[in-house]
C-alpha cells in the first residue's frame, strides 16, 4: 500500500513546498559548510601542534669559542629530549635576511652571522624543556633556544575561538531551521483545520493525523536536505582544489579525516530526525487544542 496515495489532508502546495525545500537546502548547505570549516580548523591546529611543537631553533652567536661549541655538541648528543639536530646552511641564513641588508654588507666576511641549529625534539614535559634551556644558558649566556611555544599557543587559541564561533553559528542555523519549521507546521494545521476536524470526528487518532504531516514533511525535507548536501559537496570540492597552492604543505577540506567526514555527513540525518520530531511535537500540541 502506498501511503502517499492516501494523503487525506491537502498539505501539498507546490509553490510553498518549493520555497520550504529551498530554505531547507540553503540551511543544510550553510550548516555543512560551517561544520566543515570548524572541523578543518581543528584539523589545522592539531597539525600545527604536531609539526611545530617538535621543532626548536638554537642560536649560537658568531664569536662563540670552539670549546663551548664542542661542549654544546656533547650536551645535545646526550640529552634524551633531543632526537636530532642540524646546522642551517650559511647561504640559507643569508637568503632569509637578504631583503633587510645591503648586498655589499651581506657578502662581506665581517657580517656577524650567528650559527643556527634546527633541533627536532622528542615529546617531553615542559619541565624537561626548561631544564635543557637552563643547561644551555649555563654553558654560555648568549646561546638561545627558541621552542615556538608562545607563538603556537596564541595561534592555537585563535583557531579554537574560530572553531567555537563556527559551532555557535552552525547551531543557530539549525535552531532557526527547526523554529521556522515549527511555525510553518502550525500554520498548516490551522489552514487544514476542517479536514483535521473531520478526521477526528471520523475516529482518526492524533497519531494518524501526525503521520500524514510526517509523510509530507519527510518528502519535502528529504529533498531539501539532499539538494543542500549536494551543493555543500560541490562547494567543498571547489574550495579543496582552488586553495591548493603548488608544492606547499596542503591544508584543504580534502585533508579532513574519515572520522571528521562521517561526523559531517551524519549531520543531515540528525537534522532530518530533528525536523521530524519537531513536526510531530508541533502537530500533537495543536491537535490537543482541538475537539
Amino acid at each position, binding site marked *: 500500500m502506498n501511503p502517499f496515495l492516501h494523503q*487525506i489532508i491537502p498539505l501539498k502546495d507546490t509553490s510553498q513546498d518549493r520555497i520550504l525545500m529551498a530554505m531547507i537546502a540553503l540551511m543544510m548547505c550553510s550548516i555543512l559548510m560551517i561544520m566543515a570549516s570548524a572541523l578543518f580548523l581543528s584539523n589545522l591546529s592539531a597539525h600545527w601542534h604536531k609539526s611545530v611543537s617538535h621543532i626548536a631553533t638554537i642560536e649560537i652567536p658568531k664569536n662563540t669559542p670552539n670549546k663551548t661549541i664542542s661542549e654544546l655538541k656533547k650536551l645535545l648528543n646526550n640529552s634524551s629530549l633531543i632526537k636530532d639536530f642540524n646546522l642551517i646552511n650559511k647561504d640559507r641564513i643569508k637568503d632569509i635576511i637578504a631583503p633587510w641588508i645591503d648586498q655589499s654588507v651581506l657578502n662581506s666576511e665581517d657580517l656577524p652571522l650567528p650559527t643556527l641549529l634546527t633541533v627536532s625534539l622528542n615529546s617531553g614535559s615542559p619541565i624537561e624543556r626548561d631544564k635543557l634551556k637552563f643547561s644551555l644558558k649555563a654553558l654560555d649566556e648568549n646561546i638561545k633556544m627558541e621552542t615556538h611555544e608562545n607563538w603556537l599557543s596564541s595561534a592555537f587559541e585563535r583557531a579554537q575561538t574560530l572553531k567555537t564561533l563556527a559551532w555557535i553559528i552552525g547551531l543557530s542555523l539549525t535552531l532557526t531551521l527547526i523554529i521556522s519549521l515549527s511555525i510553518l507546521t502550525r500554520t498548516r494545521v490551522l489552514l487544514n483545520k476542517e479536514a483535521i476536524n473531520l478526521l477526528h470526528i471520523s*475516529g482518526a487518532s492524533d497519531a494518524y493525523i501526525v503521520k500524514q504531516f510526517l509523510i509530507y514533511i519527510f518528502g519535502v525535507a528529504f529533498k531539501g536536505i539532499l539538494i543542500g548536501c549536494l551543493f555543500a559537496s560541490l562547494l567543498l570540492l571547489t574550495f579543496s582544489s582552488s586553495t591548493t597552492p603548488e608544492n606547499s604543505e596542503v591544508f584543504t577540506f580534502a585533508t579532513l579525516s574519515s572520522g571528521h567526514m562521517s561526523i559531517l555527513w551524519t549531520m543531515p540525518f540528525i537534522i532530518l530526525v530533528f525536523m521530524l520530531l519537531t513536526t510531530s511535537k508541533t502537530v500533537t500540541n495543536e491537535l490537543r487544542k482541538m475537539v
Partner: protein
Amino acid sequence: MISFEEVGLRYGTQPEIFSGVNFTLSQGSFYYLSGPSGAGKTSLIKLSSLTQRPTRGFIRMFGQVIEHHDRKSLTSIRQKIGIVFQDFRLLNHLSVFENVALPLRIKNIASSSIRQNVEELLDWVGLGNRMHYQPLMLSGGEQQRVSIARAIIAQPHLLLADEPTGNLDPEISEKLLKLFTQLHRMGTTIVIATHNEHIIKTHPHPILHLDNGILTERILPTFPDLRLKTSPLSDISDTIKNL
C-alpha cells in the same frame, strides 16, 4: 447506548440552548429528532457525536462517561459513530470515492476490500458513475448521498443523521429510509433529525421533540398499538435505568 444527564449547552455568552437535558437511548432503537428550526437539533447531534463539549452535565456512550481529555477512548468511540452532517462536510480536494473511503482508511482496512465496499455502496446510492468526480462537481442532493455513504460505510453502531433528506427528492428519500430501516434491523441505533412529516408518517418511529430547550418524547397517535407519551424524557430514562 447514549444517555445524557443534566446536559446544558451555551455558545459563548448566549443563553443556554439546553437547560439540563436528560434522556437515554437503548441499543437498537430508532428515533426521529424533531423541532422548529433553531431549536437545537444540530447542536444535540453535535453533542452526541462528541464534536461539541457540553457546558455542563454528563454524556455516557457505549457504557462510558465521555471525558474529552481522554483522547484514546474518544477515538475508539468515534469509530463506532456514523454522522450525516447537515452541511455534508465533504473534502473537496478528494474524489467521491476517497470521501466515502475515509472511515475505512482510518481503520487501516486493506485497499482491495475498500475498493469493493465503496464501489458497491456508491452504486447503491446511485453514484456509481460519479466515483471519480470531486464533490463540487455534484448537485446538492448528490453531495448529500456521498455524505450518507460515508456515514454508513464502516457499519457504525450508532448513526446520527442531520436532516439527511433535506436535499433529496421523495423517491431517493424513500430509498434512503429503506436503507436506514435495513441498518436498524441489523442492530444499528439510529437518530434522524428531520422536518419531513411525510417520512415520519410513512416510517413511524418514536420522536424526540425539542422546543425551547426542553426535550420530550412523542409517539405518533396514528399507531394505536403504541402507547402515547408526552412526559419529559427524564422520567423515561429513570425507568430505563431501573431495568
